[in-house]
């Protein structure tokens, strides 16, 4: 079974990879990718079912926090029902999104802003070293350079320092990260193709 899975995974990966270079194999590649999209959607559906099973178990066994599980399941079924029946452009569905989803997640981002601020303040107490100082200084410069003062811009910061940081330092770092990501992706793909990594199962 493991060998069959390995052969299947490697063969599929090779066909999709070769399909980028050989147009004849594009139909086969498209079929495989369509199967992948269906499997991914099914996996999301399976995840929804798993979520329902876990929280339903908590409610049935009267575990601690079962009330939250009940709320989760109620919202889940309501969103599923309204989304499936009414559709995303239904006013009720829009209300559900605008009144629940967006404020909740936006609030989390607001809390995150306060937490980040607090952490940056405590950073020099916990770890007063050069990197901490550089991190704090860079953040301050970028924030100052991104904002404007009530009386106008600070030319050196807004027009020179911030763009230099953004297009030199940040760009360099971003390119490095992207190159590393590309190499990592290539390596991971090759390992999967040769069977060294088997994320589909097996050792």
């Amino acid at each position, binding site marked *: 079974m493991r060998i069959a899975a390995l052969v299947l995974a490697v063969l599929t990966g090779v066909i999709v990879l070769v399909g980028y270079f050989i147009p004849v194999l594009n139909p086969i*590649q*498209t079929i495989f*990718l*369509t199967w*992948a*999209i269906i499997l*991914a*959607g099914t996996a*999301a559906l399976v995840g929804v079912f798993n979520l329902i099973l876990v929280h339903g178990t908590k409610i049935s066994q009267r575990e601690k926090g079962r009330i939250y599980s009940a709320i989760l399941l109620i919202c889940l079924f309501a969103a599923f029902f309204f*989304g499936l029946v009414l*559709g*995303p*452009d239904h006013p009720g*569905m*829009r209300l559900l*999104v*605008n009144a629940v*989803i*967006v404020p*909740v*997640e*936006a609030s*989390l*981002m607001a809390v995150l*802003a*306060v*937490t980040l*601020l*607090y952490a*940056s*303040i*405590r*950073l*020099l*107490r*916990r770890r*007063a070293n050069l990197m901490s100082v550089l991190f*704090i200084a860079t*953040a*301050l410069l970028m*924030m*100052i350079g*991104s*904002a*404007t*003062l*009530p009386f*106008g*811009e600070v030319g050196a910061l*807004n*027009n020179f320092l911030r*763009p230099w940081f*953004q*297009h030199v330092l*940040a*760009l360099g*770092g*971003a390119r490095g990260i*992207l190159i590393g*990501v590309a190499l990592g992706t290539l390596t991971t793909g090759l390992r999967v193709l040769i069977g060294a990594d088997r994320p589909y199962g097996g050792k």
Partner: protein
Amino acid sequence: MAEPIICPVCGESNPADMEFCKNCQSRLLPLTGPLKDEDGPIHPGQIPTKKVTAELEPILPEWLREARKQARQSAEDEPTITGGDKQTKPLTQTPDLLAGLADQNKQGDEDDETPDWLRSITGAPAKKKKNEQDSSQVKWVELGHNEEPGKDVPGSESAGLPWMRGGESAPEKDELTEWFKQAASPAAPSGENLTFTKTEAPAPVQPDRSTPTTPVSSAGEVPVGTKDIQPYERESVKDLTGSALSSDIEIPDWIKKLDAETPSAGQHTESGKDAPSPAFSSDTDIADWIKKLDSGTPLVGQQSESSKETSTPALSSDKDIADWFKKLDSETPPPGQQPSSSKETPSPATMLPDVPDWLKSFDEAAGAGQSGTESGEALPDWLKTAGPSVQETPAGPAPAEPAIVQSQPIPEKNLPLSELPDWVSSLTPIEPRAAEPREPAVPAFQMEAPATSPAEPVSSVSALPTEPPAASPAGPVPAASAFTEIPESSDDVDAIFASMKIPDWLADITPSQPSPEEGLPPAAQAEEPIEPAELPSWVQAMRPVESAMRDSTAGPLDSRLEERGALAGLQGVLPAIPGATAATSKPKSHSIKLDATDQQQAHAALLEQILSAETAPVPMKADSVPRSQRVLRWALSALLIIILGGVIFGKTQIFPLPAQVPNETIAAIQAVEAIPADAPVLVAFDYEPATIGEMEASGASLMDHLLLLKHPRLALISTSPTGAALAERFMASTLAQRSYQSGAQYVDLGYLPGGLAGVFDFSQNPTAVMPLSADSAEVWNTQVMQGVTHLSDFAAVIVLTDSVESGRVWIEQTELARGNAPLIILSSAQAGPMFVPYVDSGQVKGMIAGLNGAAGAEQANGGLPGFVRRYWDAYSLGLLLVVVVMFLGGLWNLWLGIQDRRVHEAG
């Protein structure tokens, strides 16, 4: 095939079936044969069978028992007499049978260099030994003689044993005497007519066992000669060859010269009464036997045989003989001073005051009558019986051959081997060349080798058990013969000795001291020693360790009762081997004191301190700042909420928009403006509801600008599950001013699953991947999506994303399928820097990152829809507030941190 047997004497190779050597006639195989049963050899570790030798004591002859007794007594008295001689102590502790041998060895050691008789012959006063008498008795006892050389003179009879004085004076009658009488019953002619002195005898002398071995010329001279030899023979067996006398001996050149230089000697011999010295009476006569002696080959055998019958152990070493001759020569008066005849010759005692006793007695015996001793009256019984040839030898020069013929062999029937004492019979197997096959019953000290061949020179010697049987035929034979013939030649010994000169070959032999190995027989000198394990039974019986081993092995350890284990209750199952436990060495004691240096001790103390600190409880420090931290968080939250809320709800516009528009923003505006009107545009909403505030404000200006200018047909798609709802929110609320309706101006394709693969597949075949809208309606056949079947059919692809990954997927996976359709990225300020490389590379035509980038687009759009301006004061004030808080809070906490570290270091 049997291997040939190498003769142990001459080294000649003989067939396996030969019993005697074809060359030297020596016995090739031991007479005793392989030892079996009780007599078998013992092996290492084997406990020898105990044999009580004391039972044999009654079997011994009386004289031997007495001798053994005296030997024991002498051994016991030895330490007191010698003043604690260390060498005698271990010897006296040996068994009885070896007591005499030990004493003999002792005496032999004392006589190694110069015997008493030899010292006394020189005329110099001999040193009196302390234990001379005792030791001398031991010596003659062991060798079968009864007197010492200095005591056998007739004048000193009191010093000798009674039975040695003659038949009438011997009060005791022992077995040995009788044995000798029996052996001498066919008596030989008188000693005056000794056959070996007859030089006229035929040269070829056939070896005959009956040949008398007593090299004496008369009965009275026999004891002298033999007694003089006795101590001599103890030292070396080689000297036995000196007794080989024959009539066919020729005088060597040195004898001739000697004769020529000493005319008196010749006169003396000629004036001899009845028995002129045969050695010097005629040069021609003497020459034969002297030559024989010199050559040393045929006469030795004869001598061996003669000595075998007469029991005269005429043994001497060539060395001692040579010394004797030397001293004699040196102290002998010049030839001119020698008397011409024995009658005119004064007594040696009168001439030389230092003449030894034996010479005196010799002189007295001569004075008593030259032939007076022929009758043998003065001889002891054993000598009378032992010397038949002497008594029956007719007076005057008789031919040697008749004397030899008349010699009678020793009656073997009288002395069977079984009747012999063990110590005598057991000694015979030692010598492989012993003359046992012919006369096995003859005592060892009388036995001679079976000289079947004249060429065998040392066969007689081999018969002696305690002395080496063989000797070199060159040197010692003439010396011994010359020595032994002196008393038989004439009573005027001084004249003879005075007339003699020691030849060179004899002088060369004299100083040489034979090594102990030289005195051994060739067999004994061989490199192959006798295996120590194969001990004969008689040696086994004589081993004194037998009792000790038996006692040690049969100790109480054998009867030990096992108390534990599988053998519990059994007794003597595992006998302890004596010495096994006692031999164990004491284990070496090692010092347990640790010698550690100061540094090592310091390290050990440090380690101990660390270990103790690990086990010691550490008090938990109370967190003293949780309230202040919580207050701080609340304070920060309140500050931000109040200030920013106030600014937002106050709709202030204090902070101006940035005047400088980023280049990527300008590129994005240009790309939007390049989109044809009423063209299909694909818009991907890949952001989360959490970032909806920034994303809607960042993308609203450009989208508003697009809708305002180009009125594109929009196809909304999202890779996020919430993307479709957010897209509807964006179109319904953010772009509400543009009144775009779903299905009329835009379609919502919904959620595109599969991530990277889904995007790629969608780019390849969008109609197949997303055939339905979010409302489950056909979209590709609608007016909105008219003319769009591929991704490249879209006029532009706009991606609103707050994630680098989703934006990168769209950039990378749709690049080939997009064709000429520009890709515009509307991202958050967080993800913006990551798309800058793609903008610089041209893969992305334009980008608006965050509120700062959207400010330029809004300004380009105439300030519409105005989201940037609405949030810009709050945004700018919030950033400044955060910067101030971070700076001040950072400094404060830095100082607190320094204080904490100081307190920690101080504590």
